[in-house]
């Protein structure tokens, strides 16, 4: 398999080509904005291609551990079932990792719902820290700071 350049580097180079050689030749402001939007999407894809599998594989055990601990502490059968149904597989194929991540996320949310309903402060604090970490990882990939154009309408 060819590894040099990496997928992220290829996408960055495509963005570079668009910005240096294609964008200056476009005179229609609407098309300039569209192209600028697309380069942001490509930059996000470059970020994601570098990290998204490893980020999800790091987060999955954290979600499952939280759900298992909540199930053990509360004896709640729904949380236990959700945690047991969400074990991480060995496949590193992206679609498989996404499926694992979604199941783990559901297990986490089932546990979090329970500790919020019962105002279990220790678990709430731990769960909120997990959410903060999830957000930090998401932001690292999708910066979410660009606002090209004028408004929602």
């Amino acid at each position, binding site marked *: 398999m060819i590894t040099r350049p990496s997928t992220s580097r290829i996408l960055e180079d495509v963005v570079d080509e668009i910005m240096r050689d294609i964008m200056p030749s476009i005179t229609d402001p609407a098309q300039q904005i569209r192209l600028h939007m697309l380069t942001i*999407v490509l930059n996000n894809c470059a970020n994601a291609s570098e990290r998204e599998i490893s980020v999800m594989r790091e987060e999955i055990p954290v979600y499952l551990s939280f759900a298992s601990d909540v199930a053990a502490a509360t004896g709640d059968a729904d949380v236990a079932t959700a945690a047991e149904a969400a074990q991480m597989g060995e496949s590193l194929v992206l679609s498989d990792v996404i499926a694992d991540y979604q199941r783990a996320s559901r297990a986490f*949310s089932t546990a*979090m719902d329970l500790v*919020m309903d019962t105002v279990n402060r220790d678990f*709430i604090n731990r769960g909120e820290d997990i959410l903060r970490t999830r*957000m930090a990882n998401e932001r690292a990939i999708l910066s979410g700071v660009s606002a090209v*154009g*004028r*408004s929602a309408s």
Partner: protein
Amino acid sequence: MDAEKLQAFLNSVEPDCGATVLSTAPVPGGYSRDTVMAEVQWADGSTEKLVLRGDPPVESSVFRSDRAAEWAILQAVKDLPDFLIPTPRYFDATGEYMGCKCIISEAIDSTSMQKFLDSGPDLDKAREDFVAIMASAHNTPLDSIDAAIERPSDWRAHLDDVIANYERMLECIGEDDPILRYTLKKIRMNIPPEVPLALVHGDLQPGNFLLSEGTDPYIIDWEFARIGDPRLDIGYYLQIPMPPHLYHPDPEAFLASYRALTGLTEEQINPAIAKYFLLLGTSHLMLDILQGTEDVTAGQHRGVMGTFLMTAYAHFHKLYLDYSLELPYTAEATR
């Protein structure tokens, strides 16, 4: 929405006015509707600029709103004494002529308040002006608005319907977003005090206020307008990223002015409740964004917005988590 189509439309709706379409040019920048500026010459030799506002093709758009509902709102508010809107002139309700449902309004020789803010004005004064325009919409007596505009049965039913946008989001993406689930739970734990229902704009921001010499400001882009909780507009404005912001430097001053003009109490609107309403005031947009991402996931093309709005998804996601983390676990949490 080109010159030829507009010409055919005007020939049909104004057969005796001798309209000649001199030019049309797209106006870039809007995220949801296609906008075109047209210049028309009438039989008496006078010329006029018109703004055409139409729906982009479904397969290349993300945000959904109903042009007929927007036209009904425009008709309901066009003659109100409290604020100005560009006169809505024509509506191609079926898209027979314009190729899409299209609202045609007068063009106002103006600058947007956002551009004015970019010029470095006194921001304290600008904040007061912004609040006054916002309050002018919210103070509109509901009995002065055409009865055809839908009214919620009561405040709580309306709020529950807005909160249900989160359920719709979760259903859309398969229930597996812990941040949205957490946010929804915190929203339900912190139901705010009731306020009178009012005319809500739905996209109230300086970019949608037009300043024109010698007249009061105009409010444009009514596509998300409805009768509802006016605090939705305040919450919505909190997330507008374009600087300079008129709320964040001094929330207390902003809200004190708003309370003075609307009569709401500090219990009804304060900085914490304003943040709460960011969670609700943006939920209609987030729902459309998530539907767009799901369509892309399913292999459909939704235009550049379908993928670009992942950045808005991340932007709202962070705001939702940050603001809902601040909400307390109230006694209602256990009910």
